Every structure is written in C-alpha cells, then in structure tokens.
C-alpha cells in the first residue's frame, strides 16, 4: 500500500511543479499578483509531497519491503540498519529521488530567505526551479520509478555493492548533490533576470550567497569523495581522473569561475554577460554530471540502448535546458553592456585570468571525459583517455592561477599600482624562494615537483597571510575583516594547504607491494613493518581475513594495523585497508592475496602530508560558507529596487 502512496505523492508533486513553473512566470509577465503569489505555496506543497515520497522509500528500505523492485535489488536481510538509509540513494532511481528532494530543499530555502526581493523576480526564480523539478519528476515517474513492485515479493534482496557499505557513503552523495543542485539557484536567478530583462546586475548580488553555499557543498562533496576513494577503494590514491570524479569536478571548476565573476559583476558591473553565461554553464555541467554518473552512459554509448527511453529523455532534457537557456541568452544578452573601465594591471584583469583558466580547465576535463564516448559513437575504437592526459594539461592550466592568486587581494579595482603591490608581496616571494632552496639543501632527493610544491605552497599561503596582516594593521578595528573577505582568505589559504598536500605527497610518497611471510620485517621510508600473520574474523555480514602489521620507528612501536580482505555474504569481495593517519604522515597497509607458503601479498604506502589535501578542501568549504554569510547580501529591499512587475519584460522584448 505505502509504495503506491509514494508513487501517488510523486505524481502530485509533479502536478504542483507544473503549477509552480507555469503560473508565477505567466503572472510575472502579465503583472498578475495573484498568480505571482502562487509561487511560494506551490513550492511548499511540492516539497511536502517529495519529502513524503522520499520518506516512504526510506521506510521501505528500513522495513525491508522486498516487494519493491528497487529495494530488492539494492539491499538484503543482512544489511545493518544504518546502511539501509544510504542504500536509498545507492542506485539510479533512488539517487534521482534524492536529487529532487534536495532541489526542493533549495527551493524552500530560496522562497523562505528571499522575502525582501522583488516579487516578480522571485516568481520567475521559483518558476525556473519548478521547471527543473518538473523535468526530473517526469524523468523519475516515466523511466526510473523507484516504487515499481515485484510481485510476489522476493524472500531476500541482492546485496548493496560492498564498496558502498561505508559511512562515507552516508554523507558523500547528499553533499555532492547539495552542490550540484545548488547551482540551479544561480541558474534560476540568471534565467529569471534574462526573462525579466532586468540585467543591471542587481540579481547577481542576490544570487551570490546561494552560489557560494552551493560551491561550498560541492567542495565538501568532492573532498569527501576523494577521501572515500583513498580509504575505501584500497588503491591509496586520492584522485583518479575517473569519469565519475570528473563529472563532479567540471561544475566545481566552472562554479569557481562563477563565484569570482559574480564578485566582479556585483561590485563593478563588468563581466555581466559572462556571469550569465557561467551561471548557465555551471548548472548545465551539474546536469550532465548527474546523468553521466547515474545513467550508465559512461560504460558506453550503447548503455542508452539498454533503456532507450532514459537516454532519449536525458538528451531532450539537457537539450531543453542548455539549448533553451542559451537561446534566451542570445536573444537578451546583447542588451547587456556596461561596467566601469579598468586598466591592464587591475583586479578585474586578474579575475579575468582566473575565469579563463578555470573555464579552459573545465573544457579540457570535459573533452577528456567525453572523448571516449565520441570515439565509441563514431566507431573509432575503444579509447581511454587516462590520467596522464589530465595530469599533464591540468597543472599547466592551473600554473597561472597559482602564480596570480596572491596578487588578487592586493591589487585594486580598475587601476592598481604595480610598485605598491610588489612591496607588499615581496616577503612572500623571498620566503617561497628561500624555502625552495632550503628544501633542495635538506632533501637532495626531492623531485622538482616537490620543490615546486614547497615554493607554491609558501607563495600562496604567505601571500594570503600578508594580506590578512595588512588588513589588521590598516583597517579600523571592527571593520578589518568582512565575512566576504574572511571567506576569501580562508578559501585561498585552503588552496595553499591543498597544494602542499598534492605536491609534497605525490613527490615523497613511498609505495611498495611486498610478499610477506609471518614475522618477516620489511622496510619502507625508514620504518620497519613486521607482519605477524593472518586470522579469520567475522563481521555483521561478512567473513574476513585479517592481517596484523606492526610498524616500528627504530624500536618504538608506532602502530599496529589490521588490514582486512572481506568476503561478503552476497559473495562479493572487498579489501579494507588499515590506515594510521597523522598530520604529517599517513601509514597505509592493504592486504592482497595469499601467495602460498604462508606468504601474503601486502601493499605498504607511506604518504607524507596527504591529509593536507582534504584539510585544504575543508578550508575552502568554510571559506564559501563564511563569504555567503556577509550581511551585504541580505540588504533589505530598497524601494527603488522594486520595479513594477509587468512592464519591464514587455519593454525588454520590444
């Protein structure tokens, strides 16, 4: 009974989303305040029904209702209760429902926190959000219904992929989706501004906090994903340029460009059309990412053939959203111009470099990700574009960004003094060069990459610290750091930490695959690893071979590690690495196969500074959230800001 109710709730939500899309936009066009007033109640109503559907699906998982096909194929009786919640979004249908739920959370938030904005603009923003929701609900109901029955009910389900049975998975997809879907708000504001013809840039100020929050969540989602890959997949890497990772990274890159270009547009009025375009791109890439990951297209274009309706629906929806918004942009954007002039050496130019580099990087990732699909479709052959491609092009594109980033805060808008900037940043330059020289002297075996890492970290880190100090000295107390500025400082400092993590860990890590017999000692990175053997242990739904490795620094015992190789009851194998983390060094031991004669294959990694990668991500996360909290973005409605709703669009079209 309940699953049918869930289905029914989804259909009601679909109807409400149509209402939320059509009526307020029509009302804003006609100046009909009654129709405009429908927007908020429709948002609330839709959210209630979507939440109800989601709750019912979750309930089906918790009570293990195997008469629901989706539940039966993604969980079984042995699944512990706490993994039944993430199992809801463990596969295609449920993750779409989660996407829709999060879109509704954002819509409700926008409706609730934007009461000071002009009604017509809000009607259009909520209408665009309703349109997106409508598209996804249609997709779910028509092609990916999670509530389909399997009658008679199965006695037991098949297993959730064991890789996914991990606490990381409880939080990783929702955070990632918060980011993906969050860009829909910036998109909705951009489309609303284009529809309304109010392209003066006021919309940017209102869209900025939403974009920052979405970007912060996406950062968190990617960071968690990278952390999860590091400690679950058992390969010890933190980023693989896997298509699934790229799918989340592309919107992040464009989103990074967007938050910077929004700042220029809001403060200086420049880059208006560009900001509109970036808003459209960021969300389009989010959509593409959602579908790439969950539709199975990445497997091959032929995956479309397994369920052609899904493929066609995806292409149509992408076509409508991307094509429609670009068409609207082409019609309206020529009217956008203006902004204050700026000189070559100014903050605008630096931010332009930032934007170009990030957009180029996103295009480069897109090309590498889709190239195999294109090759497959054209029959060129099975091509894979591996990490070497990305690993070569991406750092090159980011090099100008790293070089330019400390200048950003010091350089003034419009026109800046080259000498003053140089004086301010000189200590950072000296520090970076000195540290690189010290690194060469102290660690003669350090690769060029490691030395560059030390220099880049100190250049970016010291640059931003110098700026924070300058504000402390020069600005009056109480106005030293606005939240917006503090957010920027945190995020840029996060980049310095990230650079240290990536470049130092990549250049100094020790990775060894060894054959271990009990009580044998192997050395790696100056540490002794002693293997004491393997025992059998029983977990809630698996049987594991558990190895024991003692790690000593000289005679001092640093860690006793227990890597496992699990055999799940659903027959799937999964090895679980043992990790001893530290601020300056991670020890990582994974158990491989038995090699005969009591010997086992064991993988030993020593990874200095690897954690700084994720510390950097966290700093960026807090940076994004802090910047979004700036009071400036919550300015109360100025009377002059509220235009008569009806006239503006009509004039803009004329």
């Amino acid at each position: 009974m309940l699953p049918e109710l869930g289905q029914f709730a989804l259909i009601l939500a679909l109807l409400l989303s149509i209402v939320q899309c059509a009526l307020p936009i029509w009302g804003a066009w006609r100046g009909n305040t009654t129709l405009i007033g429908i927007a908020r109640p429709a948002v609330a109503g839709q959210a209630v029904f979507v939440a109800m559907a989601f709750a019912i699906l979750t309930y089906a998982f918790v009570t293990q209702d195997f008469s629901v096909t989706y539940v039966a194929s993604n969980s079984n009786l042995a699944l512990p209760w706490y993994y039944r919640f993430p199992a809801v979004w463990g596969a295609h249908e449920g993750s779409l429902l989660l996407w829709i739920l999060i879109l509704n959370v954002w819509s409700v938030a926008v409706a609730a926190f934007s009461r000071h904005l002009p009604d017509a603009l809000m009607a259009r923003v909520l209408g665009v959000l309703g349109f997106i929701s409508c598209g996804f609900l249609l997709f779910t109901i028509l092609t990916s219904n999670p509530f389909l029955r399997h009658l008679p009910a199965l006695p037991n389900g098949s297993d959730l992929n064991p890789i996914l049975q991990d606490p990381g998975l409880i939080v990783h997809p929702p955070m990632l989706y918060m980011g993906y879907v969050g860009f829909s708000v910036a998109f909705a504001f951009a489309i609303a501004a284009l529809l309304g013809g109010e392209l003066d840039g006021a919309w940017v100020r209102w869209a900025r906090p939403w974009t920052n929050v979405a970007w912060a969540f996406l950062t968190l989602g990617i960071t968690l994903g990278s952390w999860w890959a590091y400690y679950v997949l058992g390969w010890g890497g933190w980023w693989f340029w896997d298509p699934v990772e790229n799918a989340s990274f592309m919107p992040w890159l464009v989103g990074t460009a967007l938050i910077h270009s929004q700042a220029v547009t809001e403060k200086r009025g420049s880059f208006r059309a560009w900001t509109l375009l970036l808003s459209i791109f960021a969300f389009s890439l989010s959509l593409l990412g959602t579908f790439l990951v969950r539709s199975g297209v990445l497997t091959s274009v032929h995956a479309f053939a397994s369920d052609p309706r899904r493929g066609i629906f995806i292409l149509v929806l992408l076509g409508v959203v991307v094509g429609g918004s670009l068409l609207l942009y082409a019609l309206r954007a020529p009217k956008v111009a203006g902004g204050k002039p700026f000189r070559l050496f100014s903050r605008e130019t630096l931010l332009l470099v930032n934007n170009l580099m990030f957009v180029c990087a996103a295009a480069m990732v897109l090309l590498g990700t889709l190239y195999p699909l294109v090759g497959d479709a054209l029959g060129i052959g099975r091509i894979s574009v591996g990490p070497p491609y990305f690993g070569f092009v991406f750092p090159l594109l980011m090099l100008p960004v790293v070089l330019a980033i400390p200048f950003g805060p010091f350089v003034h808008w419009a026109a800046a003094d080259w000498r003053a900037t140089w004086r301010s940043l000189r200590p950072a330059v000296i520090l970076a060069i000195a540290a690189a020289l010290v690194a060469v002297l102290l660690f003669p075996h350090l690769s060029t990459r490691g030395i560059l890492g030390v220099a880049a970290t100190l250049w970016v880190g010291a640059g931003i610290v110098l700026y924070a100090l300058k504000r402390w000295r020069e600005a009056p107390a109480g106005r030293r750091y606005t939240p917006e500025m503090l957010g920027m400082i945190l995020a840029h400092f996060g980049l310095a930490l990230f650079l240290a993590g990536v470049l130092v860990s990549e250049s100094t890590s020790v990775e060894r695959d060894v054959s271990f017999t009990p009580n044998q000692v192997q050395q790696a990175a100056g540490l002794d690893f002693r293997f004491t053997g393997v025992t059998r242990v029983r977990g809630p739904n698996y049987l594991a071979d558990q190895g024991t490795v003692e790690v000593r620094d000289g005679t001092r015992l640093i860690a006793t590690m227990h890597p496992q190789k699990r055999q799940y009851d659903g027959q799937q194998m999964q090895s679980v690495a043992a990790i001893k983390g530290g601020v300056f060094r991670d020890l990582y031991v994974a158990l491989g196969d038995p090699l005969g004669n009591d010997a086992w294959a064991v993988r030993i990694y020593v990874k200095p500074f690897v954690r700084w990668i994720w510390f950097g991500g966290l700093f960026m996360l807090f940076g994004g959230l802090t910047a979004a909290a700036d009071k400036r973005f919550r300015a109360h409605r100025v009377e002059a800001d509220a235009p008569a709703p009806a006239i503006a669009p009509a004039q803009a079209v004329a």
Partner: protein
Amino acid sequence: MTPTRKRRLIAVSLILIAIGIAAALTVLALSRNMSYLFSPSEVLAGKAPDGSSFRLGGVVLEHSIRRAPGSLTVDFVVTDRIHEMPVQYTGVLPDLFREGQSIIATGSMQGNHFTAREVLAKHDETYMPKEVADAIAKAKAVEAAKHAQPLH
C-alpha cells in the same frame, strides 16, 4: 583608443591566446595519452602498437593462474574465447580478480607475452565488462566471418 575599446582588445587577445595555448596543449596531450583497448585476437593480428602501451581486455582463462610460491609475480592467460595471450604482472591484484572474470590490463608487449603495469577487474557492476564483452563479440564475429568465407 578609448578605454572601452582598449579593455575589449585586452580581453579578446587574452581569450585568443588562452584558447590557442589550451587547444595546442590539449591536442598534444590527447594524442600522446590515448590508449586503445584490444582483444587478444586483435593483438595477434598485429593491430596493437609495438612496444608502446595499450590496454588488453578479455577473460582470465580458467586454470591459467600460476605463481611461484611466495612471489608477487603472477602469470595468467587472457582470452577472448578465440585466441589467448599470456600476461605477466607483479604486484597486488584487485579484489575481484579471479578465473573466468573479465579484466582490463594496461601494459605493453614484451616478446610473446603481455607485461601488465596495472590490472583492473570489474570496477563496478557494468563499467568494465561491457568493453570486454564488445571486444569478445568482435573477435567472435571476425572468426565467424573467416569461417564463413571459404564456403562461398
């Protein structure tokens, strides 16, 4: 030149330079780093590049896994059910590696056998096997065509 024009000129030239550099780098990087997937039949037919790296896809032949006790080096045979290719790998094998499992090995030919740098087995439910299945289907089709021709 007016400030507006000057600004536009700067913007446009920056964009053009960036696009030019990015395009050049990308083409260079793409052409160097693409790796193709071949089945054992295709490799034996001489389609795979000599000496340089490529990916070999197929199924691990039953009863073909051999290793010297206590050694990390493992020998096995990858087959597309038509032709077979011996493979050597040193290191920890992935969890899902076993006989009858479809795998993708990255590496290069060393004489008559394939030396793998990396072995991937069934990344998730559908990802890897599809490519391998296609390669196997292709090998079968080629074989069928070969057998069919003499009849005509």
